[in-house]
């Protein structure tokens, strides 16, 4: 469904992504794991048009993806940015409605709103509250809910578990599985490799802007190298860091 071919991104002189190739099939959850600064967020930003790639192709169903963020959203790709970027001085309800910005069909928007409230009952309890006064976990729910309101075909999730309490991480991941079951394809970027690999179908490992490994998530979960580098499991005498 989504295909990235030989993508190169530079920040000034820094080569942030080198010839990155990636494929996401319809209905899959694909995760990209990697350390800080490996280029995970850059990859998502390039797909959503926030960062301009120097070379390479990004295709959705074989067609090139628009170069501007608003064009990308129109095509059904929706990014949920890292760090819970909510509109702090708008209410929860207004934040969600901003997500449906490019849609005009009232009845289907309301149906999606009900669906978001069903996924995150907390949001429906707080719909009149200013988004800035929500807790971190609630803000993460809100950014995800706002993403769903654009009724995306594919959702790009950037570090949804960042800085959340373990119990909330659990909730967020249940919802991710739920969203996929409802038919939305998901590309998930995570530092919490264990959680990501447990929920995903396939995974890519990104190191210094290069895809070093890819395969079914279950296999990577048991790969000794991955276990040592990203899951903090020591192997024999070798030490990390």
């Amino acid at each position, binding site marked *: 469904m989504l295909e990235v071919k030989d993508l190169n991104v530079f920040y000034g002189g820094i080569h942030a992504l080198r010839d990155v190739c990636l494929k996401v099939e319809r209905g899959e959850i694909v995760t990209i794991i990697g350390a800080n600064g490996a280029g995970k967020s850059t990859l998502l930003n390039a797909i959503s048009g926030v960062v301009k790639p120097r070379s390479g192709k990004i295709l959705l169903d074989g067609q090139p993806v628009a170069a501007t*963020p*608003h064009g990308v*959203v129109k095509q059904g790709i*929706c990014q949920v940015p890292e760090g819970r970027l909510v509109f702090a001085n*708008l209410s929860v309800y*207004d934040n969600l409605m*901003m997500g449906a910005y490019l849609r005009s069909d009232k009845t289907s928007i309301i149906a999606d709103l009900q669906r978001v409230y069903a996924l995150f009952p907390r949001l429906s309890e707080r719909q009149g509250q200013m988004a800035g006064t929500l807790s971190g976990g609630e803000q993460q729910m809100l950014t995800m809910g706002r993403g769903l309101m*654009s009724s995306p075909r594919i959702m790009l999730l950037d570090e949804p578990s960042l800085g959340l309490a373990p119990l909330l991480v659990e909730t967020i991941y249940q919802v991710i599985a739920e969203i996929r079951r409802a038919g939305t394809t998901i590309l998930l970027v995570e530092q919490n490799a264990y959680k990501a690999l447990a929920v995903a179908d396939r995974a890519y490992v990104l190191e210094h802007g290069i895809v070093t490994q890819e395969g079914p998530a279950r296999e990577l979960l048991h790969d000794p190298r991955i276990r040592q580098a990203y899951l903090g499991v020591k192997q024999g005498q070798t030490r990390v860091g």
Partner: protein
Amino acid sequence: MNWFYIKGILILCGINLTAVLGLSLLTGFTGLFSFGHAGFMAVGGYAAVWAGLRMGLPFPVALLAGGLVAGIVSLPIGRLTLNLKGDYFCIATLGFGEAIRLVLDNVQTFGGARGWAGIPVTTTLFNVTLAAALGTFVMVRLVHSRHGRNMIAIREEELAARTVGINALKYKMMSLFISAVYAGVAGGLQAYYLGFLQPKMFSMTRSTELTIMVIFGGIGSISGTVLGSILLTALPELLRAFALWRLVVYGASVIFIMISRPEGLMGGKEISIAWFRRLLRPVGVGGAGGSGGAGGAGAGGRGVRQ
């Protein structure tokens, strides 16, 4: 205090209000700070006088032409600078404002540094009030529209706004354009009130004054903008009895507001009919009422923003 003097202050209030309303859209609602709006006032002022005197257009048309020229000038400026983030945009506008002033200082067609004298005094209290009221009405409608909400979204969190599909550059350009048109019209009103144009009038101090009025009144509030620009225009005049000390008092009162109410006088809230009702309910009928200028602005509002 004779009527002529009071009328003069009221006209200045109206001129400042028109300029500050536009800036309020840019700074208060879109989150872009500008220290160069006096530059747009200058462009509008000179263009309006040119249109009126050299081209012989009637006064209202000349004013609109001034606003339009200022708006058009803002487009290439915006295209070049609006990709800059925060402080950098601010510095770029500062540079623009100073550049306009220096160009006008040196281009002899417009009178250069000596200024352009002999402009017929056409601006009256009536047409200033009309312009300011119309400007307020349009701005209130704009801010409560879908476009206004998109600008607020950009102010709140630009990346998030872009990821929900808002064309951030387009809305920032729109905001800058509209604010430049307002500044241009205000510049025209000022030229036709003073009967004289000089580049010195549009220095950085003037730009700063406008921005202070927006912040003083409250970021993201039209009622605050109205209150702020009227109070800060009238205050130095009311304090004229203190002679040189009045500027100290002016500065001190701005600092006082910033310390006691960092969010500005209104702090993102609007005065509206509903707001007055709530104000009166617990007190009874004997409420002191609000200032006249604010009531007029609130009438167009649609209630306190949630």
